[in-house]
């Protein structure tokens, strides 16, 4: 569709997303380059170094086992970090008033902020995947499971990032969630190992970590490794993402934390 034929509402939506993409592209060394380097450091350490000790997990090469989780982690962390920082920065400088006093609806504002981080996570993950595919011939066993699962994971953490940014009053608040909630959940969700390797009670406790199911879905999508009840895991992920969006929408509709 050409720009000339877009409705006012579509132009508004595109502009809100453009602002967010514009922001992270202006600082792409930090927002794209940094996370890419970080992911490849993980691959080097866990693949090259640990991989020589741990040859395989349930028949899969260790490095191939780890990369799906790393791709998912990159999408999740980048979506979250992008949106929480972007919203908080705009709240600090009050630049957000430009969007808030525009005719954009609460849903448009929420989607605009959400998609910014989603797209950044997508870029980092796709680049990681492309390089990993070239280096290691990473398979994509079940794309019909992989693509929707990754998209839902990206969406979930994008919305979570927006919510944290909206509620945060200082950068410390954002760091708190990222360092003390998100990273432990992701690391303990099984990015670097299979839950079957853990002793009890950790093996059971892992099953209470929602990220465990996200990683299970993504790993199945890439390499076909089946652990949890994946059908149930997908439904659970979709419901939790929808519920989080519903909550975020109610926050935007009432203007809580944004409009005085």
């Amino acid at each position, binding site marked *: 569709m050409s720009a000339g034929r877009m409705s006012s509402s579509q132009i508004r939506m595109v502009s809100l997303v453009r602002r967010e993409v514009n922001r992270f592209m202006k600082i792409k060394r930090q927002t794209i380059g940094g996370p890419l380097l970080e992911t490849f450091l993980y691959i080097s350490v866990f693949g090259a170094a640990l991989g020589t000790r741990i040859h395989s997990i349930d028949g899969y090469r260790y490095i191939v086992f780890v990369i799906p989780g790393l791709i998912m982690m990159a999408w999740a962390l980048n979506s979250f970090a992008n949106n929480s920082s972007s919203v908080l920065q705009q709240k600090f400088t009050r630049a957000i008033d430009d969007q808030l006093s525009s*005719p954009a609806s609460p849903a448009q504002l929420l989607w605009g902020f959400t998609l910014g981080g989603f797209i950044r996570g997508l870029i980092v993950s796709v680049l990681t995947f492309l390089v990993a595919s070239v280096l290691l011939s990473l398979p994509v066993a079940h794309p019909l499971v992989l693509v929707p699962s990754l998209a839902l994971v990206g969406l979930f953490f994008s919305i979570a990032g927006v919510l944290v940014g909206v509620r945060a009053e200082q950068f410390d608040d954002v760091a708190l969630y990222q360092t003390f909630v998100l990273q432990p959940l992701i690391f303990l969700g099984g990015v670097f190992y299979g839950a079957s390797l853990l002793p009890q009670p950790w093996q059971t406790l892992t099953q209470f970590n929602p990220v465990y199911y996200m990683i299970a879905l993504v790993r199945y999508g890439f390499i076909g490794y089946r652990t949890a009840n994946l059908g149930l895991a997908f439904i659970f992920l979709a419901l939790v993402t929808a519920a989080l969006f519903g909550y975020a929408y109610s926050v935007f509709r009432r203007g809580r934390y944004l409009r005085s």
Partner: protein
Amino acid sequence: MTAALEVRDLVKRYAGGFEALKGVSLDIGAGEFFGLLGPNGAGKSTMIHCITGLARPTSGTVKVFGNDAVRGYRRAREAVALAPQEINLDIFLTLEETLDLHGGYFGMSRADRRERTAELLEAFSLTEKRHERTRNLSGGMKRRLTLARALMHRPRLLILDEPTAGVDIELRLELWRYIEKINREGTSIMLTTHYLEEAEQLCDRIAFINHGQIAAQGTIGELTSGYGVSTLEDAYLELVGRQELSRSHIQDAVI
């Protein structure tokens, strides 16, 4: 003719219980240049925020050209613009992007945005800086860009919250000329300022607000005669109860 702004019994109570507006009613006619004067903390900014959607009224109504600011917020916000007192430019954007995105938020087509951006950058002598990031601008340029951004979507009611606070004399006069021009072209204006000279120069009518209530409103002549004084400054001092600061008292004391 529909009023540019119609505020009725507007109450704004914040979460902590502080009542910033206590039933304000106000009308601004289409094409009018209206001044809102009052001391800091009187409720000016809260009222502006209720009009532009940055604050949610507790009760009462706000209508911009007949469109309810809450129930019909899309049309109301299309008709109004705010140039805020505190510069709130997006530090990641260039000047051109600032105007272009603002136009986008208001649904303007790409061709229209391009044309309007060029026109405003030229009008505010910012064309040469169009590819610079906003954070690299001088204070005066930031102030001009803030006004240009407010005008981008061609608002019918422009709210200027202390537009000349802290600017040099040349820029103040330049901004006055520009504001007068757009008012002559039909844009209704609501101005808040602490410079009484500015209000005298520009405004058709003025309202005094204090402690969240409109204390008086009318032309300068009506205000001065209402307070039984001869200047707007003296009328203002009556409003805030600081008559002892009046220049006439000081002059009398010197004589």
